[in-house]
């Protein structure tokens, strides 16, 4: 589903955030991405989203070569990928409901089916009773779960997460990781970047480790 072929990524400043990274993630597989701060985890996820383009090598999502993807196709790639961001990226000018509804509105769903799907997503993350609140009123952990609800509301083929448990207490972290596991169980390809080695070791999934932009054999 996701394949990196000798990928290097150099930021305009000259810093090489990824060097010669190769790996592949099968359809329906789940894996963790770990590494020190600055090792290039977020950069790797950005390449999958085409928020950045590889300087060298090839990135594939499904059977699409992202290097060849035209700019006007990027939105349709992103609709296939749900992302939970490191800095949640919620909008504070609208309710929790409207935040989660955004991907559906963009894809052109009817109002009635938007309501149904948003509530289903909220129910999954256990925040059904917060739909009318402004996300700014929620705790950091709750905000992160709203971000997760938004990532899955469109039933994406691929789910990416950047430090989704960064601000959660251990129990909540475990529950959120459990959610990712659940989505993987129904066939979603999942890639989660995380520091939480302890938690990761307890999950039955592959772990990719980045060290200063290089993929280490675990």
């Amino acid at each position, binding site marked *: 589903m996701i394949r990196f072929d000798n990928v290097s990524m150099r930021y305009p400043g000259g810093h090489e955030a990824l060097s010669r990274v190769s790996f592949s993630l099968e359809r*329906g597989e789940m894996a963790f991405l770990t590494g020190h701060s600055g090792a290039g985890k977020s950069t790797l996820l950005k390449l999958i*989203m085409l*928020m950045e383009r590889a300087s060298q090598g090839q990135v594939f999502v499904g059977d699409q070569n992202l290097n060849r993807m035209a700019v*006007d196709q990027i*939105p*349709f*790639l*992103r*609709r*296939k990928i749900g*992302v939970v*961001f490191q800095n949640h*990226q*919620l*909008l504070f*000018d609208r309710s929790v409901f409207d935040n989660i509804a*955004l*991907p559906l*509105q*963009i*894809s*052109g*769903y*009817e*109002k009635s*089916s938007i309501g149904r799907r948003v509530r289903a997503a909220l*129910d*999954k*993350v*256990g925040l*059904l009773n917060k739909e009318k609140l402004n996300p700014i009123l929620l705790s950091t952990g709750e905000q992160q779960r709203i971000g997760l609800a*938004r990532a899955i509301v*469109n*039933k*994406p*083929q691929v789910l990416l997460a950047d430090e989704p448990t960064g601000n959660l207490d251990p129990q909540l972290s475990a*529950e*959120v990781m*459990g*959610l990712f596991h*659940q*989505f993987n*169980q*129904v*066939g*979603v390809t999942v890639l989660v970047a995380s520091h939480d080695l302890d938690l990761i070791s307890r999950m039955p999934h592959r772990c990719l480790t980045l060290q200063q932009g290089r993929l280490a054999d675990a």
Partner: protein
Amino acid sequence: MRSSPQQDKPKARGSASTQQPDLKDRGGSYLNHHFETAKVSWQRLMATPLATLMTLMMIAIALSLPGVLYVGLQNVEQLGQRWQGSAQLSVFLADALSEAEGRDLAQQLSDNSQFSQLSYLSKDEALAEFKAYAGFGNALELLKENPLPAVILITPSTDYLLSDDLSNLTQQLLSLDGVDDVRVDMDWVQRLQAMVTLGQRTVLLLGLLLALGVVLVVGNTIRLEIQNRRDEIIVVKLVGGTDSFVRRPFLYTGFWYGIGAGLVAWLLVQLSLWYLGTVVDRLIQLYHSEFQLQGLGLGATLLLMLIAVTLGSGGAWLAVLRHLRAIEPR
């Protein structure tokens, strides 16, 4: 997760492939989305009524200024055309000619089929008329002698409306004995016409400059709006919003500014004309003419709205082209 236990064991719901909204779901959804976006853009404008009103007034004033001038010129031109239809020749008679000789000459001329109307004014009659209409009565009292010549007023038949024919006629009349001078009111009409043309060019130029101003005002307003909604734009792009989806609300904002400013400008033009109308009425009475100041007709109103909407949307379009590209999620 904390909610219901059955969440822990989700039913395997077939594939996890991205579910594109099925056709039924999408049906009127595209139009619906346009409608929604237009509504939300409208509500945003209404949420800051004062700021919106100020921008609206700026645009409306810029639109109404050339509007008023244009309509004013249109009226003047119409007035000119009306007078052109009744060009008049004033044949001034030499002082040496007695009143009887003058009436004789008038009589001879009135047999001429070239004239549709003819009347003779003696020196005294001319003076009386002048006093009555021009309000110089008192000043003229001071003069010992009547300075005005006798005059034969001629309205040529409608065959003589072209200026070439008119000048031939003038030459003929001048060659008559006892005729001092011939004035054609047409001169004045032509001068008026030239001035109207000059005025129209000026209004056009002014209009173009102000249109540019409108585009810049809308463009700048939308630019600020784009900056204010930067976060939203980034998130929308991250979850798969196309460029046209991102653009749409801003274009609708420009569209609403156009509509709103067009309506206000229409109102401003009509109010100005109504105010000017009261002044013009008095002036017109002085010249005993039946003239009605024409306001903006249906065609001109539609044109004004079209221009307003085009400029509003155009300004928004420029701002969007220029500033949305720069906002990409990083």
